[in-house]
């Protein structure tokens, strides 16, 4: 049983990985996923999503979830 972790844009480059599966043992929220995956504390200006819905660091994560981390978004136009 596991959690899928995804990284995008500059976060992906900094972390050096795009996607991984981590064991959900000992993981209760979004910040735990980040810590488990990167071995450092979750930065303030990072955005996260659980199953493609924006999520706060303290939001609970369940087995089978897809958790994504990314910088502030910059789509659209000038």
């Amino acid at each position, binding site marked *: 049983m596991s959690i899928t972790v995804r990284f995008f*844009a500059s976060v992906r480059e900094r972390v050096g990985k795009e996607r991984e599966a981590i064991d959900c043992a000992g993981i209760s929220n979004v910040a735990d996923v980040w810590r488990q995956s990167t071995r450092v504390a979750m930065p303030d200006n990072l955005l996260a999503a659980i199953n493609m819905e924006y999520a706060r660091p303290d939001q609970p994560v369940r087995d089978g979830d897809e958790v*994504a981390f990314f910088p502030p*978004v*910059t*789509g*659209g*136009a000038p």
Partner: protein
Amino acid sequence: MTVRLLAEAFDPWREIVHHQEAQSALAGKFGATTVFVGTLRDFNQDRAVRAMTLEHYAPMTQKHLERVAAEASSRWPIADLLVIHRYGELSPNDPIVCVAVWAERREAAFAACRYVIDELKTRAPFWKQEQTPQGRRWVAPEPKAE
């Protein structure tokens, strides 16, 4: 209401014509069409831009663009809405995004169009990386206040 994500260059004006012709129920029923097209410039923050890569979180972008479009449709009396957003490799002068709104009156058309373009910029998971003569750089989000 249509939301499309495209990997290839598109002509927003042709897409608008096609959409309007395909929605035959619209004919004669709308008095106002408001369109916003965002285009890649060949400069940004005092640097030349040679190309841009638009990364996105594929099904999440579609989901959130559809939600923003649905919100606009429920807040204002509009007849139809079309949103097209590029991703992948873009060249200067390429359209990035197109938002078109059909409504009976112009107040609703302008308000809904503005709402969609403003909201998608803060909620749809896209990230721009520019190629400049000084190398690649990720574009920072624009400040909130306007």
